[in-house]
């Protein structure tokens, strides 16, 4: 599950301005924080699933618009990918979130897990296309869109939406992609920026780039 693409890292002390070679193997802190994000997202997924039934009934005046709600289950992967920045992060976080929402209890049973894997892959593929090196807003939005594409395809083939007419299926697909881009892509990117500013990401590359140097950082990283 983790790529052991250990690039050679030098052991001589380097100045703070030189770029360190990237390490792609997962550290313990990567695993635990990804799990925490996954589990927290899983709880939100479960709550979103509860709210989904009445909300989708509201949107049902044009069948297929429920796709707009799909993004609520897609943000875990993008969030995990943006923070951990290593291969497999998006899939792992999304799967953990899916498992947790399944554990608490959803109407979709085991299929939640399968959906989680595919949705995670949707985001992961986009991140891989950028070689896990580009983490700007555009990539985050695309990753969200990728997850949206994945869930759109799945839902219109295997769930009750497969029973809709082709026109409505298209509406569903497009709204899922839009929802993924906004709820999963944009929101996750904003969340990561907010997190970085609080210093919570001091052990990750995401927490150490851009922004003014924080003068208050006088304690060792906990």
């Amino acid at each position: 599950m983790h790529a052991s693409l250990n690039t050679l890292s030098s052991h001589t002390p380097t100045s703070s301005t030189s770029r360190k070679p990237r390490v792609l193997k997962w550290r313990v802190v990567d695993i635990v924080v990804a799990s925490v994000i996954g589990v927290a997202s899983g709880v939100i997924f479960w709550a979103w699933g509860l709210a989904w039934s009445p909300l989708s009934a509201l949107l049902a005046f044009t069948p297929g618009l429920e796709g707009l709600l799909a993004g609520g289950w897609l943000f875990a992967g993008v969030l995990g990918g943006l923070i951990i920045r290593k291969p497999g992060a998006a899939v792992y976080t999304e799967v953990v979130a899916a498992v947790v929402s399944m554990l608490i209890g959803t109407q979709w049973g085991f299929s939640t897990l399968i959906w989680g894997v595919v949705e995670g892959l949707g985001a992961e593929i986009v991140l891989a296309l950028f070689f896990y090196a580009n983490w700007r807003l555009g990539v985050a939005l695309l990753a969200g869109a990728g997850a949206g594409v994945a869930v759109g395809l799945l839902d219109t083939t295997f769930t009750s939406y497969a029973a809709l007419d082709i026109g409505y299926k298209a509406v569903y697909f497009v709204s899922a992609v839009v929802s993924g881009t906004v709820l999963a892509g944009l929101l996750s990117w904003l969340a990561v920026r907010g997190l970085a500013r609080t210093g919570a990401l001091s052990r990750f590359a995401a927490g150490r780039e851009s922004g003014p140097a924080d003068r208050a950082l006088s304690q060792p990283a906990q």
Partner: protein
Amino acid sequence: MTGARVTASGWGWRHAGRARPAVSGLDLDIRPGERVLVLGPSGAGKSTLMHALAGVLGDDEDGDETGELLVDGRRPSASRGRVGLVLQDPDSQVVLARVGDDVAFGCENLAVPRAEIWPRVGQALADVGLDLPLRHPTSALSGGQKQRLALAGVLAMRPGLVLLDEPTANLDPEGVVEVRDAVLRSVEASGATLIVIEHRVAVWQHVVDRIIVLDPAGGVLADGPTDTVLSAEGERLAAAGVWIPRFPPSPPERRDRSEVPAAEVLLRAEGLVVGRVPFARKRAVAVAGDLDLTLESGTATALTGPNGTGKSTLALTLAGLLAPAGGHLAAADALAAGLGPAPHRWRSRDLLERVGTVFQDPEHQFLAGTVRGELAIGPRALGLGGAAQTELVDALLHRLRLDHLADANPFTLSGGEKRRLSVATVLATRPRLLVLDEPTFGQDSRTWAELVRLLAELLDTGTAVLAVTHDEQFVSALADARLTLVPGPAPAGGPGVATGSVSAGRVATGRVNAGLRQRTGTEPS
């Protein structure tokens, strides 16, 4: 199993993203079986040293290392399992949901055969004095128990070096003693080397043989037997914030009685019953009951008692954040200022000017992205805009010495700074009653003295203070009255309800200034 030997030569570490190194030019030689207390002002790199010895500082991604630091002649990251580390926060060290499983975790990681794991678990739990069934849920443990659990998890690994990074900072006095005794017992039995960081010297004075004081500018300030270092450096350390028994912080100066505005009743409770409403239920479960209490302006009341007696619940109820579960709680006109008598019914904006609450964990209160923004929230909610708001915020920043941090994110502040910020945010709206939950928890003596001085100033201008506290020194320094909660008898099948008694009159002891005010009918002691 013998103790481990620790050597350092010119060792230093700089965290990634910081300009200056946390530690530099450190030379150490700690012999097997020694017990060492590491002291130093904050920023001296003590925590960094602990993390490095445990091998958990990280790799090149996390920072740069200079010099050499060895445990038993090998790098710490190569001798995981030889070194055990117990950290400060009890909640962030529990790994698994059951007591036995959590203690066994370390052994599993070290590939100890299953047949040997469970005997070790039993032994470790006995060593720390945790007499609980193995299937007991870890979420049901108190702070002191969780710290002892972490210690047991470390001891089960049979380490040669035991590291403790402020293990008792977040514990009440009972928990502190429990943990200290557990450490002593186990280290004596195993002969392991012990290194402790703590700023309460009194707790560890008689456990350790040697004290090392780190210098923030690099290297070691002092290194020698306990008594020698304390007599040579005691005063300097006390000035830097360490709690040295012989140099306690000086009590605050109080104004003369005649200069203080007359006391008026702010809040009155009769037969008050407090409790919390559990998740997904409607009725509150009473925690403490039948309490009579009067809060007057310009007076400080201390709320004390053992854990679990509902002190926090009572404080939050008096602050208007929780609804009373029974009895009678009424705010006098002096406090309510035109609103109804029930504080929990006031809108939260109205609460701002009347009651200020400072929570035990400052991080729970942070809402904004900068310190300045944080201070502006209260005034803005009251409708104060533009220049007036800026002026108020600047004054507060200056008063609490947070000027240089005005644009920093609140979460990046140090412990003492966070505490000052949370108190500052409450002061921004000038409430008449201030409720504080464990304000001096884990603070070094400098921050403690500042806080006490600040509260004394507020008291002298007519603010009422209610503080939940375990800190006897705090009570002696400030309290005019004291409400002690005592656990009540537990009826069959249910938790007991605590009761309380108020002892009024001056409770201040210790050094007293001549100009101290006197209450009618009570002598200053």
